[in-house]
Structures are given as C-alpha cells and as structure tokens.
C-alpha cells in the first residue's frame, strides 16, 4: 500500500511547495482574528488558510461554490490537489464514475457555521421557504466527501468519518484497511474543518484555548513548552491518495511513501480516560497496534509526528510514546509538533499532519517545532529528541503519526520511505 498523491490547504500554505517552505522555515500560520476580539473570546488568534477567495475560483464553479461552506471548499481544494498530484485524470461529467476510487474524508464539527448563520435564524423567524435548496448538502455530516465525489467522479465507497481530533488520521487508517481488503484500488483519505466563531466558541468556553498570546500570534501555539496554556484553533484540509502498490505500478505512478500499518481504538473513558482525557493504556495499545501491523521494531521509527496540541496532555503523550515503544527517553525517536506552526485544525489536523509526515519522508527533512525553547520540565529527559530547528534528514525512513481526540479515541499510522 502506497501514497501516490498529497493535497494540503493549511494556515501557513496552500499546496505542497508552499507548505514545505513553511514547514522548513518555521513559518507560523497563526494570526490575530479581529472578529474573535470583537466577540470577547479569550483566545483571539487562530489558523485560517489565506487567500482562499482567490484560490477557490480556480477549482470550483460559481454554481458549486453557491452550495459550499468553508469546510467543503477546503476539502475540495485539497482533494483535487491530491488527485492531480497522483497523476489521476479528471473524469468528464458525462462519463462513468471511477468504480475503483473512493474517499474517506472526515470532519470534526462540519457545517455548524451554516446552521448558525443561515438555517437557525431563518427557521426561527418562520422563513423556512427562504432557506433555498442548499442547506442539507452543507449541513449533512458527509457534505465534504459528497462534494468531492461529484467533483472527481468517485464510484467506490464515499463517506465522512468523525472522531473529533483523531478524524483525519482515522480516515487514513480506514482507507488503508479498505484497500487492503481489496474493496478499492485507491482512496482519498484525510479531513477538513472550516473556521468559524461557532466552531471555536465551545473550545474557548472550555478554557482549553491559549488566551495569553493574543498580542503575539506566532508564539501562541506552544506544544511541549513549560508555558503551554492551551491549543490554538486551526482550519484547512489535508488529503492523501492511498493506492494499492499494484495499481500504482500499473499506471506508473510516482510513489511518495509506503503505508505500513495503522490502528485505531478507544479508551472507553476508563483507566484515567474520559470524554476529554486520554486513557494512557489505550494510547499505548494504539501505538503498539500500529507498530505490530507495520511489522517493524520500535527502534526503526525515525520520527514521531505527535498529536501534541499544547494542553496539559503533551508530557503524558510523550511518556505514552516512550512506554509504547519500550525505550528510554534518550532513545525515543525524534519528535515534533506540526500544530506549533498551524494550530489544531481539529478534524483536519490528522489529514494535514499525515501530509506533513509523508512530505518530510519524501523530501528528507524534519521540521522544527516552534515555541518550545522552554521545554516542559517533565520532558527534560527527552530534550535531545525534540526537533527545535528544521534539519535535513535524507536518511529518514519511518515516520509514526498519531492523533488523539475527545471521546478518548486514538489513531496511529506508520509511513515508510518507499524503495523497490
């Protein structure tokens, strides 16, 4: 099983070249969001893809955009980019769909902005007849994948998964398993999330967002630091084309990486887990499950792209990696947080970060994590393993990517550099 295409729309870059540049140079995508200040949010910064108004018209017609919210637009742009990057042809509107290609494109919150801005006010005002025809397709959970299916002519399974912050990574695992079962030749996999005060308000109310760096947005996302004070909300989309090796070879596709294995599970809100906290045992089982399926030894992992959001959980996560891989702290693989650059893109996070993982494998580098110069004291023993500054790593062979989400859910996927 291999990855043949990547597409990304992130707060710090659209497209692989821009995203790679931003990762390498440590360019933050976190900006001050005036609307959040006006609305008295505690956290007034966020990660929002830039220039989408100009970008979207290159990808989507007026008729399509009329019925799409940002969540759907982001998914469509990243999916079309991934499809194009994989060298796959666009299917004519009057042709048969591609029966062998499908999609698992997740979202965490979905079209809540459409509900809050349009559906609820008009419905409550007795103006249902003024809602128009596009409400359902924008608020149904599967709105993002459904739109992509039509744009690309997908004829295999097309669905939207949702497991909070684990969504994008879970999508990759689900797509991987479907191809492995022989039920599809290739699957688009990843996640998307719009940006909206309505998506972010609930997190702000929980006090899980950092409200201490509104005047210094680039310093606001601080995973693994002693001064971590909550995550920064993000948005965007990341999509991979997963494909059977036989299919990739048959069409002479360029191969980004191999997918060795993946695992998802849940902690059942037991053994220290809850709706909002991870059960350490289940996190470790998840990582071990992925490693076992990959058929590798833990010491073969070169780089961990962690979940690492900048909440209290970061030191626990790193310790869980250590325990799962059964290594001493100084032997932990290198570890990084992409969220330090783009914030936490919720349902899109796993997708964008899987793209970052595969991109680093393909281009031979490990990007630095911003804002953890003041490493959390509990991470002292791991200090040498945290990638602070981007380094070229031509020998990079195996990357482990994990995501953990509300609901006590976990996902882990192992990518390896492809060699014949």
């Amino acid at each position, binding site marked *: 099983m291999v990855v043949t295409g990547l597409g990304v729309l992130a707060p710090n870059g659209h497209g692989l070249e821009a995203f790679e540049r931003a990762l390498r140079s440590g360019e933050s995508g976190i900006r001050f969001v005036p609307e959040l200040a006006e609305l008295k949010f505690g956290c007034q910064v966020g990660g929002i893809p830039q220039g989408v108004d100009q970008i979207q018209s290159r990808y989507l*017609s*007026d*008729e399509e955009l*009329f019925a799409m919210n940002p969540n759907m637009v982001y998914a469509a742009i990243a999916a079309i980019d991934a499809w194009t990057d994989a060298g796959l042809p666009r299917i004519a*509107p009057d042709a048969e769909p591609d029966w062998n290609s499908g999609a698992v494109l997740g979202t965490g919150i979905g079209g809540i902005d459409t509900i809050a801005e349009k559906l609820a006010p008009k419905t409550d005002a007795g103006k249902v007849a*003024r809602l*128009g*025809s*596009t409400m359902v397709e924008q608020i149904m959970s599967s709105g993002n994948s459904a739109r992509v299916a039509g744009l690309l002519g997908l004829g295999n399974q097309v669905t939207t998964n949702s497991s909070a912050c684990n969504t994008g990574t879970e999508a990759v695992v689900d797509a991987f398993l479907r191809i492995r079962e022989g039920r599809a030749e290739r699957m688009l996999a990843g996640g998307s999330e719009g940006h909206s005060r309505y998506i972010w308000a609930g997190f702000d109310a929980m006090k899980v967002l950092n409200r201490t760096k509104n005047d210094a947005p680039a310093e606001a996302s601080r995973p693994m630091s002693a001064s971590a004070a909550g995550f920064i909300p993000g948005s965007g989309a990341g999509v991979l084309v997963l494909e059977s090796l036989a299919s990739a070879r048959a069409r002479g596709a360029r191969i980004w990486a191999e997918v060795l294995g993946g695992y998802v599970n849940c902690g059942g809100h037991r053994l220290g887990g809850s709706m909002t906290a991870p059960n350490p045992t289940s996190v470790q089982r998840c990582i071990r499950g992925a490693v076992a399926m990959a058929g590798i030894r833990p010491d073969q992992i070169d780089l961990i792209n962690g979940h690492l959001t900048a909440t209290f959980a970061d030191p626990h996560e790193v310790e869980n990696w250590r325990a799962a891989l059964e290594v001493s702290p100084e032997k932990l693989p290198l570890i990084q947080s992409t969220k330090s650059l783009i914030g936490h893109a919720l349902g899109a996070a796993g997708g964008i970060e899987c793209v970052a993982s595969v991109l680093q494998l393909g281009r031979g580098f490990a990007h630095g994590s911003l804002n953890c110069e003041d490493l959390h004291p509990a991470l002292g023993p791991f200090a040498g393993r945290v990638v602070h500054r981007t380094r070229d790593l031509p020998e990079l062979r195996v990357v482990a990517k994990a995501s953990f989400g509300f609901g006590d859910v976990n996902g882990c996927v192992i990518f390896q550099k492809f060699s014949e």
Partner: protein
Amino acid sequence: MTEQEVFEKVVAIIKPFAKAPEALASAKMETSILKDLKVNSARLVDVVLEIEDAFEIEVKDEDADKVKTIGDAVKLIVEAKA
C-alpha cells in the same frame, strides 16, 4: 420595465446556476431552464428566491412549479408586476 429587460435580468439570475454557458449565451424565451441550460433541478428553488428578491414579488409554490422555460419566468414576473 419592458419584457426584454425582464428577460435579461432573468438570464443574469440563472447564469451562476447554468452548466451550459453556450446555451445561455443564445438563450431565447422558449429555452428550457433544466434541459437546455442544464440547471440542477434542486436549484430552481434558489432561482425563484432570487427572482422574488430582484423583482420584489412573491411567487406561490404552485406558480413556481409551472416555470419550465425562461419565457415562463418572464411571463410570471410581468403578470406579478402588472
């Protein structure tokens, strides 16, 4: 507003929904909104809403259901404004 002016305004309203731009460019009164202009049938609801706003009229559901061609829409608008 003349019938021709109403016709042009209706064509402009339909334009973002039409998937057959060449048919729209040569649209006539008898041009079918669904068959010729390839407007998604679900979007007729949105076309009618925009007509209501643009011409400041109210279109009853049963009248909206009868609109098949651009001419049908023009006739409905002209009658409502009369």
